[in-house]
């Protein structure tokens, strides 16, 4: 009976997903492959495909790495906050409650030609009037802008997972390390980090998978200038009404997400206890 327990425990979720999600999923994937590889060929020949691929990867690699670092620093800092720790955690996780639309909107208001950033820069005398950061003539600043906006919007996802994970590391382990004369850095590297590995793995997987799927902020700031895989999939589905090519893009997104997940699973492997 014991052997069956894990399968019994995962069965409800599998049945649930199967009925509600996998059935339509299989239909749609079949649609992508209808007529052989035609849809994929159309997708690849599209003028935006190459840009979409490079843009998506650029964003994901930069943003996910930065967010992991930032969230780790914030989670560790939180441990040492003595007064109002709950309040600080709440403030730092407020962006979680902000919808994509509102996040895109506010960062556009900050970074647009006549926005808040330029107001401050003009007051400081760095620029003389409204300056463009988000056009097709300024691809580097556009990328930086999107990175900053995404950093603001989604670091809280990683933060919440890491905070919950950190809380479960028994204080005694760290104290023992102190007794043996470990420096804070050594304590972090030898005690905290390994025990945090499952949480880091989970946070990276979820954040990366989500990142492949999100495009609202990119669309707000970049318009047509910054295609990503997901925005192209959306356009093919809804603007061009070509469900086949849209499904092809979605299959690509899925394949790459799963590949990234497998990568994290192998890299950050922890045995079950």
């Amino acid at each position, binding site marked *: 009976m014991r052997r069956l327990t894990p399968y019994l425990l995962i069965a409800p979720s599998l049945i649930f997903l199967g009925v509600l999600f996998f059935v339509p999923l299989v239909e749609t994937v079949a649609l992508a492959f209808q007529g052989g590889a035609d849809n994929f060929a159309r997708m690849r020949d599209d*003028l935006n495909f190459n840009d979409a691929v490079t843009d998506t990867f650029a964003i994901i690699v930069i943003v996910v790495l930065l967010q992991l670092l930032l969230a780790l620093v914030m989670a560790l800092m939180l441990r040492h906050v003595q007064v109002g720790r709950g309040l600080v955690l709440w403030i730092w996780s407020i962006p979680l409650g902000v919808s994509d639309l509102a996040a895109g909107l506010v960062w556009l208001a900050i970074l647009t030609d006549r926005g808040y950033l330029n107001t401050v820069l003009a007051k400081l005398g760095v620029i003389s009037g409204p300056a463009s950061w988000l*056009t*097709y*003539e300024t691809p580097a600043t556009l990328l930086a802008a999107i990175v900053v906006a995404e950093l603001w919007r989604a670091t809280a996802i990683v933060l919440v997972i890491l905070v919950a994970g950190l809380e479960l590391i028994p204080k005694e382990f760290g104290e023992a390390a102190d007794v043996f004369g470990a420096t804070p850095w050594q304590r972090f590297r030898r005690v905290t980090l390994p025990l945090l590995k499952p949480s880091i793995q989970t946070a990276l997987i979820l954040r990366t998978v989500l990142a492949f799927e999100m495009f609202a902020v990119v669309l707000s700031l970049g*318009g047509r200038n910054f295609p990503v895989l997901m925005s192209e999939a959306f356009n093919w589905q809804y*603007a*061009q*009404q070509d469900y086949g090519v849209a499904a092809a893009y979605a299959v690509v997104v899925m394949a790459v997400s799963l590949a990234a997940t497998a990568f994290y699973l192998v890299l950050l492997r922890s045995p079950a206890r």
Partner: protein
Amino acid sequence: MIRSVVLGLALLAAPALARAETVFLSTQLRPVEEAQKMREVILKDFSGSVDYVVELPPQLPVRIKAEAEGGKHTIDVVGALHGELQPLVSMNALAPLDSLAASLRDRGIPDSLMALGRFGTEHQLYIPWMQATYIMVANKQALPFLPQGADLNALTYDQLAAWADAVQEKTGKRLLGFPAGPQGLMHRFFEGFLYPSYTGGVVTPFRSPEAEAMWTKFAALWKGVNPNSTNYNFMQEPLLAGDVWIAFDHIARVLDALRQKPDDFVAFPAPSGPKGRGYMPVLAGLAIPKDAPDAKAGADLIAYLAQPATQIATARAVGFFPVVKAELPPDLDPGLKLGVAAIERTQSAKDALPTLLPIGLGQRGGEFDKVYMDTFQLIVLRGQKPRAVLDREAETLRRIMTETAAPCWTPDPASTGACPVP
């Protein structure tokens, strides 16, 4: 926590409400204020009760198709643009409205508009609801820079380019704007304004020498355009913010600017090219899905919306104008008056070249638009040579036309069979 769970389960178990309301699904009048006006002002005097539901245009065909496949129909009346109703025709999802059309004959809806509502078949598939077009708006501060001898209401594209250059020279900023953002209507500019004005057609002259010259000129004109244009979906925001002084857009998307600051702006027709002043009307229509729960109530609602008084109320609310014979009252707000005047001047211009909406494209309308937008992106934004791009995109266009077998539409010369792309 337990209480809310119980409450929730109780709500879920409640039986579905009895159907008393006519469900009116619309892709127009979506923003919160406009939907409120629809409910509180426009639908006020209707004899039945209406549940007004808004829908994002891309989701309309998905929903209709899903309801048809799933066998559950919830919608009595669909209100949408001509281009948005077109995919529904190829899905065979609309009920014929011939008897309703006959009963509305005394309203004075022009035959040309009724013909569009037939989509090339023998049945009336939608009743025209409201119409609009695209205009240009300029901040009065830009007027001093108009080229010598140019008449604002009869500009040419060359004069527009010179105007934008003059503005840039004197102010140092690029203040001409186009709605080239992801949800902008830039494709209509190419399909209904630029192409007809330079080549006299839309599909057949796609890669003609006139088209090549046109793109070269437009790429030069783009040098005076605010580069944020690829982010603009609605020109009213940049106009109000002063980022743009001269703009082209659908009247409903500049109306806010005209209404808020009518003394700061002027509205005028789009420019003309060597072959005339091309313009494209926008037409919204009302249709009844097949197997609608209450088709009779739907027909009553359509008849109500086609009354002159209702049409005038709609015009006041959203800047879409009546299709029936209705005199707009003289007490319109000044911003709306500006827009109306520009539209009238467009329609009555001596060199006006009306371009019809595509009729036979079915579900491929979006792909058709993409051909023109991709051409724009490659030639104007990425600086590629027009000849090579036009030849390449013409192949895609040819494929779409042959696969849909759509015949040519005005101003292209009529074709037998699919519209050719020589």
